[in-house]
């Protein structure tokens, strides 16, 4: 692939990541902040709303930019492997930042007219743990890829630049 197509690919993926890691969570949390079910005003007492938005923006930015670097790099290159690994690690931190800002223990306070009826608390920490375990396996996989790219650099490059029958580059 040429340099132009690489950059375009990187920009497309950066936009996708901005959408999925920043815009959608931002809209979701803003919507969850004040939600009504069956006419009863269930106010989400999300004290750390601003904190969540901060961590979403911070890690979303880093993830999106590393995605740009990752997807604009040539296939099976060391820089791609490096940034793919960084991206996964940042993804873990991003997911964990939800807990950090109190999102893994969502507390819904039920307020009916003036009286406070009670609250519903959903603890999703166990699920986050499971998710983190899966991410751990993904990091191992990315680490393997990185070392594969590093150790088999010569053969990968030979394959990438393998001459075709007509004598043209296959890259």
């Amino acid at each position, binding site marked *: *692939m*040429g*340099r132009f197509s*690489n*950059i375009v690919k*990187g920009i497309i993926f*950066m936009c996708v990541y901005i959408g999925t890691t920043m815009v959608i969570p931002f809209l979701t949390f803003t919507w969850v902040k004040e939600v009504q079910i069956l006419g009863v005003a269930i106010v989400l007492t999300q004290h750390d709303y*601003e*904190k969540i938005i*901060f*961590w979403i*923006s*911070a*890690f979303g*930015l*880093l993830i*999106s*930019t*590393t995605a*740009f*670097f990752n997807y*604009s*790099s*040539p*296939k099976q*290159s060391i*820089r791609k492997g490096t940034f793919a690994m960084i991206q996964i690690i940042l993804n*873990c*931190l991003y997911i*964990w*930042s939800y807990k*950090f800002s109190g999102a893994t223990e969502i507390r819904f306070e039920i307020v009916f007219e003036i009286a406070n009826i009670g609250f519903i608390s959903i603890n999703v920490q*166990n*699920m*986050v*743990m*499971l*998710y*983190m*375990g*899966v*991410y*751990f*396996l993904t990091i191992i996989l990315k680490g393997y890829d990185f070392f594969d790219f590093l150790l088999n650099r*010569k053969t990968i*490059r*030979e394959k*990438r*630049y393998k*001459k075709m029958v007509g004598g043209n*580059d296959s*890259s």
Partner: protein
Amino acid sequence: MIFQAVDFIQIIANIVAAILNFLNPIVSPMGEFMVNWMEVVLRFFPQPQDGLIVYVSIAIVIVILGLIINITWPGNKRPGFLKKVDEVEDKVEEKIEETETSVKKKVKKAKKKAKDLEKKADELEELEVETDTLEEELEELEEDIKDIEEDLEETIDEE
């Protein structure tokens, strides 16, 4: 219909719960390890009171670096060691072509010689046939001469 949908959702939920319960003892310790190191690492990250400036500047740096690096080295240039290999391959190909052409020339020459030899062999065969016929004629002539000599001797004797 709604009740059926609830049943269906319940079945799916049961399946997912079973999978999660099965994976939980294997994957959860890994998750715990991840959480431990991430809690340590996150302490060193700029906190909400510090603002987003650090993150934004890091993001800008990464994008600029990505642009510069991937424009300068897009990964479609052949590396140096492969160029040398190409040179050697080209030389080998040239030599192979040269030897092929010389071998072809030799083969052509040999074919020409073979054709000439075939022609000569045919001529020789024709000559052999001619010599055979001439020899036969000679033999006949010799017999005729003998006959004439005998006739002559007989006539001389009679006289």
